[in-house]
């Protein structure tokens, strides 16, 4: 039950625009109605959105093996996902900001996909937002994170508490050593400062074309990207695609960390977005491995977190040989909410086969 509160160690970083975007147009964004209308004829793939946005970074803290940075931007539209259906969420008239608690494993920099942070906001001890569980989300500038639009009654200082559970079973190395964590931040909400955040329209000719806005670099926050194929451990067997997602497949000779026995091998699949290389958590994946027409493995690829592999999916197999056919089936596409430019991708995801 409630432990003696271990308050997070707070490192004040101050509100700094970390958009790194040149040419802010000073766009006055007061409410949703000012969001540019969506691109017409969006492709069923990752596409260049109407605009890019800056982001403000509030305080940062560490606790329980995790670090957390409180970041925010102006409220914006996004899409929730259930199965292959998306629901567009419009900005509410009272939404003050889009709050994004970014949580990562301090030692490895991996963003855990098996915990769901909770957010409570108070002001002078009074509850303002109680028990909000922000959505897991994917955004072109930010990658995988948690976020939601929230209402705040007025400008001023708020206390934001972010709580995270200990973490799941499918973790290797130091990622397994985490405890439930709580972070307490002060958020100075100033609408005028929010309005000063960069907001840049993308040239109309580029909007809706295949491509993506550049990921932003955040000071003090590790990169959100999946390792490049070259940086993945093991024998990298190649890359295949489905629903515009890329699946890099690698095999490891030691499967013991993943519950395998001596002599077995581990097949790891690292799905990521094209262009920006963001990992894609919360899918149901399964696979078959066959040699000379004979099936040697048929089962789930379970989601794991590893220091070198990051967020990936894998299975323990008896053995892999060059020439084996490896077929990945997406039973459910990523059940994470999407920001503009991702809401039409990674939904219809047919089987895909790679010859190892």
């Amino acid at each position, binding site marked *: *039950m*409630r*432990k003696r509160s271990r308050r997070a160690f707070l490192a004040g970083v101050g509100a700094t625009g970390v958009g790194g975007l040149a040419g802010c147009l000073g766009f006055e964004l007061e409410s949703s109605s000012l969001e540019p209308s969506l691109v017409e004829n969006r492709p069923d793939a990752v596409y260049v959105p109407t605009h890019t946005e800056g982001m403000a970074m509030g305080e940062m803290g560490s606790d329980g093996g995790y670090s957390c940075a409180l970041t925010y931007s102006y409220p914006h539209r996004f899409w*929730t*996902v*259930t*199965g*292959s*259906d998306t*629901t567009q*969420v419009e900005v*509410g008239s*009272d939404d003050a900001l889009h709050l994004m608690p970014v949580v990562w494993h301090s030692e490895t920099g991996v963003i855990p996909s*098996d*915990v*769901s942070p*909770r957010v409570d906001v108070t002001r002078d001890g009074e*509850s303002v*937002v*109680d*028990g*909000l*569980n922000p*959505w*897991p989300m994917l955004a072109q500038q930010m990658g995988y994170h948690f976020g*939601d639009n929230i209402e705040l009654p007025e400008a001023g200082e708020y206390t934001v508490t972010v*709580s*995270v*559970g*200990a*973490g*799941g*079973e*499918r973790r290797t190395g130091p990622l397994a050593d985490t405890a*439930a964590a709580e972070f307490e931040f002060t958020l100075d909400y100033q609408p005028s400062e929010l309005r000063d955040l960069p907001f840049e329209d993308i040239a109309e000719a580029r909007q809706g074309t295949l491509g993506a806005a550049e990921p932003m670099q955040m000071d003090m926050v590790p990169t959100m990207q999946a390792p490049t194929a070259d940086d993945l451990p093991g024998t990298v067997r190649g890359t295949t695609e489905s629903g515009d997602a890329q699946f890099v497949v690698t095999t490891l000779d030691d499967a013991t960390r993943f519950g395998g026995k001596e002599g077995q091998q581990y097949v790891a699949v690292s799905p990521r977005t094209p262009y920006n290389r963001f990992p894609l958590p*919360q*899918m*149901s994946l*399964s696979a078959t491995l066959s040699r000379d027409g004979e099936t040697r493995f048929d089962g*789930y690829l*379970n*989601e794991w977190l590893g220091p070198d592999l990051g967020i990936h999916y894998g299975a323990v197999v008896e053995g892999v040989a060059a020439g084996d056919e490896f077929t990945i089936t997406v*039973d*459910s*596409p*990523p*059940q*994470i909410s999407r920001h503009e430019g991702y809401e039409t991708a990674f939904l219809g995801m047919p089987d895909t086969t790679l010859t190892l």
Partner: protein
Amino acid sequence: MSDSPGIDRRAFVKSAVAIGGAAALSACLDRGPSIDVPRGPEEPSATFPERQHAWNAALPTTDAGNNHHPRHRVLLALDYGDGTPTDAERETVEAALAGVERAYERSAAGLLLTISYSPYYFDRFDDDLPESVDLPEPTALSSFEDPDADAVDAIVHLASDHGEVVMGAEEALKGELGELNGVSQPEAALTDVFSLAERRTGFVGDGLPAENQDVDGVPDDDPVPEDAPLYMGFESAFDGNQPTEDRVTIQQGPFAGGTTQQLSTLTLNLTQWYEQDTRDQRVSKMFCPHHAQNDVVEGAGGNLGSDTRMDDCGDPMETARREGVVGHSQKMVDVREDDTPIILRRDFDSTDRDHAGLHFLSLQRTITDFVTTREAMNGDQIDSDSAVGQRTNNGILQYINTVRRGNFLVPPRSLRALPPADPRATAAENAEVANA
């Protein structure tokens, strides 16, 4: 309380229960025609069942074949203080409880009540609770909750279709009324023995959540449907999905005829539920994706009759793998015995602390039965083996937070007044004293 015109009597009554106190009660009674509730018997103990929790026989059955749930609730959370109870104190508690039972008939229109005791209460005795009672201290039941322990000694649960009745009973139990419903009340008051640590209130039933939706946790545009019995918009506790009272009753030992009560305080955050999910998503997450795809649930679900057709939902893991979402009730079907859940739900909504919440009150033979059910609701295996997240698309976990958990023993009626931890041992001691 100001007698503002324009508030009709019904709206006034429900908020009066939340406010409570003698002033709210008398203001309430002064308005409009007084309610006509039959009185209880002269000697309640002679006629009332030994099982305090045997409410079903006293509840009307709805047209659909479900139990009607009393619409207004008060939970009095009580502290006993130090030391062990004396016989005089037991008599006081019994007299106070019997006083309100004489005032109102034992029915939904009248008054239903239970008194229950926590493990912290039983700690004070040298003896342990008998093995036939499974009553551990509450613990967190998921890796992502950090609830407070409900450390009070006792809980009195008052339920009635009339706000005036629960308020009147409460005031009488506190010794504030000489007469209740025309029946004179004993000198004895619960507050002679206990201190009132907290009063918790609530409601359940068509229309009440909509009338009470001007609270934190519910978005401002009044999204709760007019006919919904609970904030989340669906009917709950269908007869086909509730065990019998026999199934939840302790069968052996000195507390046979009693039951255990799990009481958790859940807060709701329904902004996402009503503003960011569609109805199909809500039906998928509350019942199962099959029910959303096939339009099985109409409105609040009244069309389901007394059975939510969980058999059609399919295996929860299979659904989670293929649909990326799993239903709240679907996840718990595996826990059923003889095709029936093993916890008896008597939960209700609340505006306590001006926040939309739910007092999840369930009865079960052992607290372990509750834990098993609650663990199924976490869906840990589903979360780790499918696209379903720790909370996201995992039933209704995204929208609820458990802020407090408590476990209580609802003793049989004959032991309801400050029971010892082991009545057998106590009886033996008394016999020794008598023989000495």
